[in-house]
């Protein structure tokens, strides 16, 4: 929170007096108690106090609400080891050095060093979605020395000293050591043992850990940039207008003073009184014919106060009030209400309403913002035949754009189908095709291939099944949602994976010959894991009959190289399907298998084991080499298509926003491939768009990294990034009106954001139609946001849902949080929160438009009425030799702004609609127009 009870008064007063106008009014209020003032003191102080009070009360309420949310987080409970047992304690009470026990699906309350877990080898799975937006589980493992501390009692009498680095913002590094008291020996700690706050324990019953950083020292909080006081552009612009008015004010005051001084001087010439009724022979300071200069100087102040009407005191208050009411309207808009999660839109700080109407760049997070963070198995191609009738969001959006009614009819049909089947509830599965469902696949032409395809889906993965003991339902914990989607699909299609042991996997299978369900066990010999370099994974299994198989799945480009040349009757058809799927915004994987000969396997086994056991630096290479040997001559089965389920209406919304002239950048922690896929899925990238990719995954850089010379890596990386930026620029300059997309990865971003390169990077990015930054850390997101904000000077909006987006949300001119999903950090840091990305359209195009046009016309109206009033005063002064006499009654003057004329203006600010909501949505180019004005 910005304020505490003690600091509230001085701090908020300081905030108030950051406004030029308020300072001016304070001076006026002080002066009005001296005889110079043209009216009584109370009439000047009254409105100022009123104005300050209203604003401060508003600030206080908003801050108090924020505090409530903070307290809620602080009061969450965790188990801490105290007096020989684990007790529930509030998060606030946690101290460094406490041993805590975190149970499954709980958030870590602080940064912990993992001591042991429910697993024997002391591993645990962690979900870091709040940190980097990645949804796959990360494996953490404790040191051997502490792994035996597996129950509550073992901590009695346990003592150790941990030394580690100072708190810092780097999420992926940790240096330290632990010294166990009994052994007097130090063991090094690495990021592998560090459990970060705001990540979640998954797939593990419980873990024990030692608190190393708490509260603001945690890596997450270090990444959080402090909440700046945001002021809207209009407010700043208004300050400008007020400076102009101020100079006019000074000018006319000077004119007045000169005239007054001259008149006063002439009233007494050589002892002869001119205007005798003023008794110039009996002067005081304000009116002194013997000393007209002093009188004129004093009169200057009088005039400044008198013409203060040029500067509208209640403008700020009125604007605050108007914005508050506007915010209420935003909150109560039923078109931005998400029924399923029961969350309306919520404008948390009303300062920035009208900024919504001027947004130039949107920086959006991917996971949870654009996507629902769930994968759905939607289509597949087996043996050259395409199955699956589901329609993706992208296809819907494209169909809508083309205005094709056929598809929408079809879509309706599908939805009916969903309802009649009553199956749409299964998460991760949206596959509809009666040809293969409910066991019908056995009647298909290539039933053998189909059987193998499904079996591969059920086996080739690293998921862990969880059987609900009461209902018998199986749920899967997967490293990535893709895998979960595959296993679920296999389950739905009749190949249920229900148990995994150290030895292998157990399946319920449908036997095509008998048509009955049988249980089978596959012994897992080896898992060749997925990596972004290999872009494939394989599992080698031995079935009950003793046959050995290798099952592989991977990206199409990689897999096609590894297929056997002879077997290619349907490889072309499959390739065509893959391309179709990719166009529809789906993630595709190619599945293939091979039966292994005993001799071949034995050979591989030897080589692979040797590689695994080697301790040399090139161990990974050796493993890859061994794997490469066996993953060959594979037989193509088909391809899968998984939809990274976009939130409802996302492509449509992005399309409309783009048409309204808003640029959209995606900043995500995901892998480059995923990010590009999503780019296609949400119509951010289109076919025919030229992609400029900036990456550091080039061979020479990788080679350098192996060398480990940090200086050389930095230098080479930077050169490479700069070179790629320049090439991109050349490309854009060379081509005429093609549209470009820029894709940059996190490592390159580090160098691109350096002071000397960022200008070039920004130029390039602005020239591109869409920008995607992948693998970016929270800090980088914030930095990019800052770069865009300061670089373009236009209004930026950041939208995100997780703690990893907090930095960028705070940095942007407007931060929008997606509420409803887990984790409230983003919402708490945001200025506006909405339940779904698609509401952004209405928020910007309707409410933003209204608020902007309302506020702008209101400000103009306000200045107009005040200047009118001020000018009448000035004209009257010219008729009273600028003596400072007021034309109107004191109170009616000071209340003119505050009460008498504020209501119509406020009413206009709140209710005026220059265009109705329907037209705002329809005529998007208006948005562009407004921005120009």
């Amino acid at each position, binding site marked *: 929170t910005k304020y505490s009870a003690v600091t509230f008064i001085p701090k908020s007063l300081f905030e108030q007096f950051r406004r030029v106008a308020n300072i001016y009014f304070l001076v006026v209020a002080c002066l009005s108690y001296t005889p110079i003032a043209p009216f009584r003191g109370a009439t000047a102080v009254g409105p100022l106090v009123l104005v300050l009070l209203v604003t401060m009360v508003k600030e206080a309420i908003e801050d108090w609400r924020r505090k409530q949310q903070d307290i809620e987080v602080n009061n969450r409970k965790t188990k801490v080891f105290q007096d020989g047992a684990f007790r529930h304690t509030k998060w606030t009470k946690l101290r460094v050095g406490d041993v805590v026990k975190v149970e499954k699906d709980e958030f870590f309350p602080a940064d912990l060093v993992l001591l042991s877990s429910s697993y024997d080898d002391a591993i645990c799975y962690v979900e870091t979605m709040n940190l980097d937006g990645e949804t796959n589980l990360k494996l953490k493992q404790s040191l051997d020395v502490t792994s035996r501390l597996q129950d509550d009692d073992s901590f009695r009498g346990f003592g150790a000293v941990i030394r580690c680095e100072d708190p810092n913002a780097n999420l992926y590094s940790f240096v330290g050591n632990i010294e166990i008291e009994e052994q007097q020996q130090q063991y090094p700690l690495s990021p592998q043992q560090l459990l970060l706050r705001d990540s979640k324990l998954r797939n593990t019953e419980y873990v024990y850990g030692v608190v190393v950083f708490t509260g603001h020292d945690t890596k997450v909080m270090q990444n959080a940039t402090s909440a700046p006081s945001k002021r809207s552009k209009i407010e700043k612009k208004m300050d400008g207008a007020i400076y102009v008015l101020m100079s006019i004010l000074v000018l006319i005051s000077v004119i007045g003073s000169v005239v007054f001084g001259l008149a006063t001087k002439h009233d007494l010439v050589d002892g002869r009184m001119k205007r005798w009724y003023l008794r110039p022979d009996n002067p005081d300071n304000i009116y002194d014919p013997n000393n007209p200069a002093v009188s004129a100087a004093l009169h200057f102040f009088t005039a400044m106060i008198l013409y203060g009407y040029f500067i509208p005191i209640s403008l700020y208050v009125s604007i605050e009030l108007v914005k508050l009411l506007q915010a209420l309207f935003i909150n109560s*808009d*039923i078109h931005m209400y998400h029924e399923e999660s*029961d969350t309306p839109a919520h404008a948390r700080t009303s300062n920035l309403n009208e900024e919504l109407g001027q947004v130039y760049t949107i920086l959006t997070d991917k996971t949870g913002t654009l996507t629902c963070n769930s994968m759905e198995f939607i289509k597949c191609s087996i043996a050259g035949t395409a199955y699956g009738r589901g329609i993706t969001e992208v296809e819907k959006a494209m169909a809508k754009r083309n205005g094709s009614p056929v598809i929408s009819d079809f879509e309706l049909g599908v939805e009916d189908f969903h309802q009649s089947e009553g199956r749409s509830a299964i998460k991760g599965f949206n596959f509809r095709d009666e040809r293969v469902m409910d066991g019908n696949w056995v009647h298909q032409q290539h039933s053998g291939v189909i059987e193998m395809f499904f079996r591969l889906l059920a086996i080739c993965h690293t998921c862990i099944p969880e059987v609900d003991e009461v209902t018998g339902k199986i749920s899967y914990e997967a490293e990535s949602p893709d895998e979960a989607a595959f296993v679920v699909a296999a389950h739905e299609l009749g190949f249920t994976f229900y148990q995994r042991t150290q030895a292998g996997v157990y399946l319920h299978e449908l036997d095509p010959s008998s048509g009955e369900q049988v249980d089978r066990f596959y012994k897992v010999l080896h898992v060749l894991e997925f990596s972004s370099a290999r872009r494939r994974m394989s599992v080698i299994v031995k079935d009950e009959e003793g046959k050995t198989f290798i099952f592989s799945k991977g990206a199409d480009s990689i897999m096609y190289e590894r297929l056997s040349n002879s077997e290619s009757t349907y490889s072309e058809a499959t390739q065509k399907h893959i391309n179709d799927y990719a166009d529809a915004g789906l993630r595709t994987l190619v599945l293939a298998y091979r039966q292994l000969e005993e001799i071949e396997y034995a050979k591989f086994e030897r080589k692979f084991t040797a590689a695994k056991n080697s301790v040399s630096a090139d161990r990974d290479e050796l493993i890859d080499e061994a794997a490469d040997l066996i993953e060959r001559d594979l037989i193509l089965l088909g391809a899968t298509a998984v939809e990274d389920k976009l939130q409802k209406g996302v492509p449509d919304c992005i399309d409309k926003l783009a048409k309204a002239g808003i640029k959209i950048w995606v900043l995500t922690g995901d892998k480059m491939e995923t990010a590009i896929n999503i780019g296609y899925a949400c119509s951010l990238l289109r076919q025919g768009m030229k992609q400029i990719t900036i990456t550091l995954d080039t061979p020479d850089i990788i080679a350098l990294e192996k060398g480990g010379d940090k200086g050389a890596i930095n230098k080479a990386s930077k050169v490479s990034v700069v070179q790629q930026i320049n090439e991109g620029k050349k490309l854009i300059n060379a081509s005429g009106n093609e549209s470009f997309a820029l894709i940059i990865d996190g490592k390159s971003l580090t160098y691109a954001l350096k002071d000397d390169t960022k200008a070039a990077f920004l130029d390039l990015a602005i020239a591109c139609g869409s920008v995607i930054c992948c693998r970016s850390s929270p800090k980088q997101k914030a930095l990019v946001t800052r770069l865009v904000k300061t670089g373009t000077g236009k209004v930026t909006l950041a939208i995100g849902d997780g703690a990893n987006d907090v930095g960028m949300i705070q940095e942007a001119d407007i931060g929008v949080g997606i509420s409803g999903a887990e984790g409230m950090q983003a919402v708490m840091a945001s200025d506006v929160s909405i339940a779904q990305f698609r509401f952004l359209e209405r928020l910007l195009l309707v409410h933003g438009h209204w608020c902007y046009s309302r506020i702008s016309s209101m400000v103009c109206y306000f200045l107009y009425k005040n200047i009118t009033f001020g000018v009448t005063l000035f004209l009257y002064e010219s008729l009273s030799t600028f003596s400072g006499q007021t034309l109107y009654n004191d109170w009616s003057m000071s209340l003119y702004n505050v009460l008498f004329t504020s209501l119509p203006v406020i009413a206009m600010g709140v209710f005026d609609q220059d265009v109705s909501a329907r037209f705002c949505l329809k005529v998007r180019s208006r948005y562009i127009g407004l921005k120009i004005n």
Partner: protein
Amino acid sequence: PMVLRIAELTSFGAGASASTHQPSPAIQNHMLDSKFTQQELPACKPILTPKWVISVFLLVGVIFVPIGVASLLASNKVVEIVDRYDDACVPSNVTNKLAYIQNSTISKTCRRTLKVPKDMKQPIFVYYQLNNFYQNHRRYVKSRNDQQLRDASKANETTLCDPEKTRDGMAIVPCGLIAWSTFNDTYTFQHNTNNLSIDKTDISWKSDRDHKFGSDVFPKNFQKGPLIGGKTLNESIPLSEQEDLIVWMRTAALPTFRKLYGRIYVDLKENDTITVTLDNNYNTYSFDGKKSLVLSTSTWLGGKNDFLGLAYLTVGGLCFFLAFAFTLLYLIKPRKLGDNNYLSWNRNSAGH
């Protein structure tokens, strides 16, 4: 004919809202789905089509011109006699007018003859008019104490009355520059040869007499200083009955002003002569001000005032002119309504 186009009679009832959502109980629990909260209240937003604009201008013209004519006629019916006497009432052999007016030993009686230009119906208002007299100077306006004027017990209350506060340590009642400088020329009238009585009661505001000037407040130490400003007051008459003072103390807003001196309840015929005997006491010579005597009748509009009528006529005429000009423009070079090409951003993009 007048055409008012109503652009947005937002009636969502039949259109979008009925088909898009029907509020479920869940919604109603949290959110008010009323036309007000959804900002869907019916609204009327006139589009400024040429016909509509021309009709409005015509209408304004039609209303304003007759009002202007009527006011002008009324103003012309007022008969007004204005006689400036400040120069004329100083004997021609006096070179230093200031010294003349300040010399209290000289009798300054002056006789003026006025001719009635037209028949004047009673009541005839008698005013004195001063020019270049800044009763609106802040130093002057401030220099009074309302409490003292109202309440006998506050006689010593003289704040703000500088520099006419006290005389020899005693509070002046009424204090302040305004009272001190009360106008003190006097007029008596003769109609042909008869004396013409002038009614000097009820010339001030009733509220002033009843509430602002106390009936138990009597002048004290007034005009006792070396420098005498204007009228001296009879110390046995309470302030609430000193109507000349009350009239004077309601300060004028502009440097040229008239103040009521009295009323004459006699009808005057055309070419009658009126002889005014006046005491020319008040000093306007030092600041080059003018003094005039004004006799005026009144109508429903008040005194003579051509400005109001002229203003109405000007605005009305301007509206007629604009209506005419727009009609011509509309007939000669019409524009299609809602043509996007004229929008600034469309023009810009076309230009580049």
